[in-house]
């Protein structure tokens, strides 16, 4: 098992965002987190990446308790990649420098080798001509693909994707999803919070429905999305269908 969250609790003031939440992710598995806004999807991803401290429970990566306060969070994050809803590219750096910053500074790899690898990646995702551009010259879809490459060049064990298509214009969603599908085929372990139910169905091995910070229902996509047992899940999916997103 690559990642396991055991009885995780997270509160912001008096609001309980994650409530006794447990979740397991095997290597090469893709898990889609679905649920309404505020159900705790993004918070869970941020907790796994140690961007926020949890209030109770344990998170293990490769069996190691990463929520132990003696663990160096920087070292843990080097093994986890994360992609954000709003891309969060560094606006003062070119695309190439955005990608090579962490490999060179954190992983102490040679600049030339990293550059080569970054260019190969950009070529693969059709952005080779953007290497020397600044992020504000790119479309949302292009920026998000760069952000994914930026996370991948560090060869993470696990990739966290936080609603990576939510900020994109509809016609740009496809190019990002295609890229993620390619990663799945290569065996990348991923946890993705998403509102794209159709995509979750195609790409996920397991779909987890979060409600009020708890796992209400989890299982293969056909079951959770096609024949949910919980009334709350059916209600949620009905509203999604109404909005035309399934």
């Amino acid at each position, binding site marked *: 098992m690559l990642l396991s969250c055991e009885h995780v609790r997270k509160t912001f003031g008096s609001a309980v965002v994650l409530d006794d939440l447990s979740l397991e992710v095997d290597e090469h598995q893709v898990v889609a987190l679905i649920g309404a806004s505020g159900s705790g999807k993004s918070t869970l991803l941020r907790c796994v990446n140690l*961007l926020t401290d949890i209030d109770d429970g344990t998170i293990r990566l490769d069996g190691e308790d990463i929520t132990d306060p003696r663990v160096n969070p*920087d070292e843990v994050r*080097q093994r986890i990649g994360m992609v954000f809803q709003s891309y*969060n590219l*560094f606006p003062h750096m070119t695309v190439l420098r955005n990608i090579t*910053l*962490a490999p060179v500074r*954190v992983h102490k790899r040679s600049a030339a080798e990293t550059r080569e690898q970054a260019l190969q990646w950009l070529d693969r995702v059709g952005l080779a001509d953007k290497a020397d551009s600044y992020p504000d010259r790119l479309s949302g879809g292009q920026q998000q693909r760069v952000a994914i490459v930026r996370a991948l060049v560090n060869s993470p064990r696990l990739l966290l994707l936080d609603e990576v298509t939510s900020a994109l214009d509809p016609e740009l969603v496809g190019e990002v999803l295609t890229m993620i599908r390619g990663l799945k085929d290569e065996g990348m372990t991923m946890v993705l919070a998403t509102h794209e139910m159709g995509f979750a169905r195609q790409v996920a091995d397991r779909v987890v429905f979060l409600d009020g910070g708890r796992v209400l229902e989890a299982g293969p996509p056909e079951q959770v999305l096609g024949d949910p047992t919980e009334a709350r899940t059916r209600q949620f999916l009905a509203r999604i269908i109404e909005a035309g997103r399934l």
Partner: protein
Amino acid sequence: MSTELHQPSEIQRGRIAYRRRQTIRSVLLAALSTAVVGVLLMVAVTGAPGWDRVKQSFFSPEVAWRWLPQILEGLWLNVRLLVVCAGLALALGLLIATLRTLRGPVFFPVRALATGYTYTFRGLPLIIVIYLMAFGVPGLRLQGTPGVLVLGGAALVITYGAYLAEVFRAGIESVHPSQLAAARSLGLTYRQTMRHVVLPQAIRRVAPPLLNDTVALQKDVGLVSLAGPIDAVRAAQIGVAQDANYTPYIVAGVLFVLLALPLIGVTDWVTLRAARRQSAGA
């Protein structure tokens, strides 16, 4: 696509003609009102009962010409002092602002000192700092106490360092938390995040206010004359005392304005560029 081939329609040609007429009208109006205001001001000043005496004691060409060389020589001191002090104050400000962002209990005294420093020296009048430095420090009779010029310069650096530290801090805080999250998620340490992600963006963003404070420093450099060194203001003061005529002050004032113009120009240009970048980026 076909912008060059496109022939504006009748309506559009009408609009263009109308806008052109409006532009001509506004230019004429602006010229007229400027002329009226200018004439009124001139009449008010030159028609004042004491104008002849003011002209004699503030705008005497002979006095101006006699003291210009000494004042220019003094101004050269101001320029050198400005360059050195601006550089040091910027470095000090950046250092203090960075110290204030340090986290962890070990750094508490450092943070507290840095915070206390910015609070104190933003409130303390520069003149008092100059007096304390130039007259208080030599009073200690320590070995190797530097001259009043260095001490006066140090007073400027300490005071402006506090202002600039606050400008830098505002810049650091203006960088969106999502940038920190992105940097940390890549495994960068806090220090690497500050150095490669936060500070470069912060400095770019606060370049206009930093330059603006440098313009303010440019004229406050004249205050070191209080400590004794013969800068432009001091040279003018000597002239005023000898000729019993205020013209040397006017000369020094004009020179200070001329000295500030390029810096103000650069500031405006940088501000404009920053504004353009923001509206283009978004």
